[in-house]
């Protein structure tokens, strides 16, 4: 902002005026500017104020009165009842579908649990029955205890307890002990030809012939 406009702001007492007026008026050009502006402003300040015709205000108030009455009547009517809030269909459907999905999943899980609880004893029993014939007995053609092969009644069909029968364990232990001294093989030892095992491949036997042909 140049100094001449600053002089104008000082002249009108505007808060945006910068600097001190006295220091500005030390400049002859600015002093002359200030005098010229002040002279014109003095004339303008002493102009009489113009007023509209008195009847005009009454006409305006005649227009304002119905509006005021309408506002006042609006207040006298009191508060209107609360409007029912409009809820869009989407805002209702999303929570409803979510809740339904949770219920369906919960019911499904519950039903699945009931089914699995019913099936578990039978499947365990089948597994026990499959394991009831020890593989060693098949290889050695050892007679199997007929009690193990026979289906157990449902009331006593506890698979864990069946293995805990001391007689069966003792029977297996005796068989293992009887096998140990007869066999030179043991787990983890180096593999050897079958004919080298004494008593397993006698000369002239089919096994012995197969070994000769292989060489």
């Amino acid at each position: 902002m140049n100094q001449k406009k600053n002089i104008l702001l000082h002249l009108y007492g505007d808060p945006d005026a910068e600097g001190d007026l006295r220091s500005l008026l030390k400049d002859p050009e600015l002093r002359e500017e200030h005098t010229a502006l002040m002279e014109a402003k003095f004339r303008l300040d002493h102009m009489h104020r113009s007023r509209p015709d008195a009847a005009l205000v009454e006409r305006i108030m005649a227009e304002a009165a119905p509006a005021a009455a309408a506002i006042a009547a609006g207040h006298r009517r009191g508060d209107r009842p609360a409007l029912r809030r409009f809820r869009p269909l989407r805002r209702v459907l999303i929570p409803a579908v979510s809740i339904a999905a949770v219920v369906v999943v919960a019911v499904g899980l519950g039903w699945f649990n009931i089914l699995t609880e019913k099936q578990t004893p039978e499947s365990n029993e089948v597994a026990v029955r499959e394991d009831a014939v020890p593989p060693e007995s098949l290889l050695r053609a050892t007679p199997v205890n007929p009690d193990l092969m026979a289906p157990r009644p449902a009331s006593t069909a506890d698979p864990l307890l069946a293995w805990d029968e001391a007689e069966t364990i003792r029977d297996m232990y005796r068989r293992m002990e009887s096998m140990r001294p007869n066999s030179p093989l043991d787990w983890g030892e180096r593999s050897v030809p079958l004919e080298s095992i004494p008593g397993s491949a006698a000369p002239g036997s089919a096994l012995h012939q197969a070994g000769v042909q292989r060489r």
Partner: protein
Amino acid sequence: MAFTSRVGDRFDRTSASDEALVSAYVDSGDESAFRVLVERHQERVFGFLLGMVRDRSVANDLFQDTFIRVIAALQRRRGSYSQQGRFLGWTLRIARNAALDYLRTRKRWQDMSSVNEEDETSFWERLPDDGLPGDEILHQSELEDFLRECIDRLPPEQREVVLLRHEAELTFREIAEMTDCSINTALGRMRYALLNLRRLMKESTKKDLTEVGS
């Protein structure tokens, strides 16, 4: 109702702020509050309109039209009146639009707005060279008429700033905001307006004295 019942008869309308009066009228239907607003600002609004259109009957019509628009806007629950505490500025903006609409229809605003305000002589060279008689100048009331005639001869932008400052009593910042220009532009227009007024008055006086002397 709520407003009047809250403050009761102790509500002093004459000393209440513009905003309080607007609230009393809009919220409570207090007709007297609106009357105080009209009477408080009638000189500012009418002086501005009269200076713009230079015709008292037209200014009267525009004054009434302005306040009817104000009522209509306030009836729409304040309408465009959103600037709290600036009722006068808002009303003057409505008045200015009404005046400009009128002047556009009369093609008076555009005819003069082509003047370059930075070039002072371009406008003054076009002024009619008729001095006023000395007895009119000497008379106080006629001196004021003479001053008004000088204001009328100012370029529209300068005249508008003079009217908004001296009749409507707006600050230069408010004038700049209302006329959509910078404060520097508003100050420049005001400076040229004052200098032009002074020159016109001096030239007229000099001419008159010359005629009396001869």
